[in-house]
């Protein structure tokens, strides 16, 4: 490495430029390809969502959004996201404390297991709860005898969503807290602070942007989850339809404009999430560097 680092001084400017760049024609072709590829696959679908949503005018758009079926779907989506994001936030904090602040055997395995839901097909994430709570399931008969409804009702929708979004907060916090080390917390403890006071006064301020980042991504996925929720919801109109499921139903009934109106809310959520994420990444870089 030390020999190579002399190289820049010995290369004339022209050679240096040539070494790091391609001919002009190739450069333009590469940029044109990147722009075309992203435009076809990402920009056009997004533009289509909004133009179709407003194709019958602003009034029709807000008519769709304010009808009772849409409002019920929005309400269920918000409740589901609130519960699963809170659960995963708590889990993320607890898991990150154990994993980032202590050394123990099997840590890598534990992290792999936490990441597991990322590799499971959404449909399978729903299927596992059918196998547990369905009439043929492990707890199915017991639940039926006690009159408890989990499947095709809000509890299963929340469970499936929590399963799918399980790793989001933890996987943001673990590397962040690992980088920050344990010195500050150790100092607080040795000065006589209690464990909880140390967590709330020392650790929490250090990871607040990381928490927000994880919650943001977790929430976007929770509100938009389709496959897992679709399997366990039962598609009962006005009762167990989340916003993505309502998009499916409207689309299959050829109510294109209505489907895209509801879809536009979810697309807006995605865009807001991306903007907030970009802003937060700036904050996280200003703080301790991340290797993510």
């Amino acid at each position: 490495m030390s020999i190579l680092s002399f190289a820049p001084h010995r290369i004339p400017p022209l050679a240096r430029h040539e070494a790091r760049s391609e001919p002009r024609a190739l450069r333009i072709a590469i940029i044109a390809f990147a722009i075309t590829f992203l435009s076809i696959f990402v920009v056009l679908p997004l533009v289509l969502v909004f133009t179709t949503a407003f194709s019958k005018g602003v009034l029709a758009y807000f008519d769709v959004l304010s009808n009772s079926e849409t409002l019920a779907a929005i309400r269920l989506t918000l409740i589901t996201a609130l519960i699963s994001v809170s659960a995963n936030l708590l889990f993320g904090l607890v898991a990150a404390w154990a994993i980032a602040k202590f050394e123990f055997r099997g840590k890598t395995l534990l992290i792999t297991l936490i990441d597991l839901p990322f590799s499971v097909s959404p449909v399978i994430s729903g299927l596992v709860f059918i196998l547990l709570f369905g009439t043929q399931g492990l707890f199915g008969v017991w639940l039926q005898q006690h009159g408890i409804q989990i499947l095709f009702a809000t509890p299963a929708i929340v469970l499936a969503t929590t399963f799918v979004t399980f790793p989001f907060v933890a996987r943001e916090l673990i590397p962040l807290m690992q980088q920050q080390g344990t010195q500050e917390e150790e100092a607080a403890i040795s000065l006589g602070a209690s464990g909880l006071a140390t967590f709330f006064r020392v650790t929490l301020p250090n990871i607040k942007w990381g928490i927000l980042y994880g919650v943001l991504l977790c929430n976007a996925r929770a509100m938009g989850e389709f496959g897992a929720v679709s399997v366990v919801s039962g598609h009962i109109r006005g009762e167990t339809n989340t916003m993505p499921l309502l998009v499916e139903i409207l689309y299959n009934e050829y109510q294109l404009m209505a489907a895209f109106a509801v879809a536009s809310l979810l697309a807006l959520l995605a865009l807001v999430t991306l903007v907030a994420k970009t802003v937060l990444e700036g904050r996280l870089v200003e703080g301790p560097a991340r290797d993510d």
Partner: protein
Amino acid sequence: MSTLAKRNVLPGFGLTLGLTLTWLSILILIPLAGLFLKTTELSIGEFIETVTSRRTLHALSISFGIALAAAVVNLIAGVIVVWALVRYRFPGQRLFDAIVDIPFALPTAVAGVALSALFSERGWLGAPLAWLGIKVSFTPLGIFVAMIFIGIPFVVRTVQPVLADLEPELEEAAASLGARRWQIVTKVIVPSLTPAILTGFALAFARAVGEYGSVIFIAGNLPNVSEIAPLLIVIRLSEFRYADATAIAVVMLVVAFVIIFLINRIQRWAETRGAQNH
């Protein structure tokens, strides 16, 4: 518990690790174990019969085959996009950089209906393609398009930081030693990017194999033609053929686990290789 954590004055290890393991077991591990338990209701013969039935085999081959093809497209297109984003300056660059993440953030059902409408015979792109005699929506080609969409961020976001961090001295040294540009790219740059490219490729493939929401609207879902494995699971569930649904799920899960294992190996290989170079 406390003996596990050596030389640490911080409190709460036993409590937090205990809670982590409990919650992980209840929500993730036990339900997944239940899946494998369910397949034991089938005899080995029945399991093989289910998994190798014509319709199941076709659905699996559609999901795995098209996911593989889409991941290859994502690999090539992703590297080109990364090159444009990292090495060049062009108008709207930051915007294009930001929109790479949209397939991550956009709910799959929204992506599904949008792609389906875009590529339908009367859609913005579907109409000109239909004029050329190419039908995308409601054919296996539609599945291919949706899987490319869903895989875009994986290769780009894994390769981008590696290319950005690549030391310019390496290329300059190669040039000063007389290497041509294409030699520098193929012999210096590409080998440095290979672990990241393979990781991104594997992640895109794994995501596409299990993808449901963005695919089913554009696929047409004809049995033995354009039916993906996750959809067949949903169909078997609606027919109350739980064991059949589970058998297909187990095959997909095992492959997903193999992919995770391979990604871990690639990353370990990259780390040891990186350590040798420094």
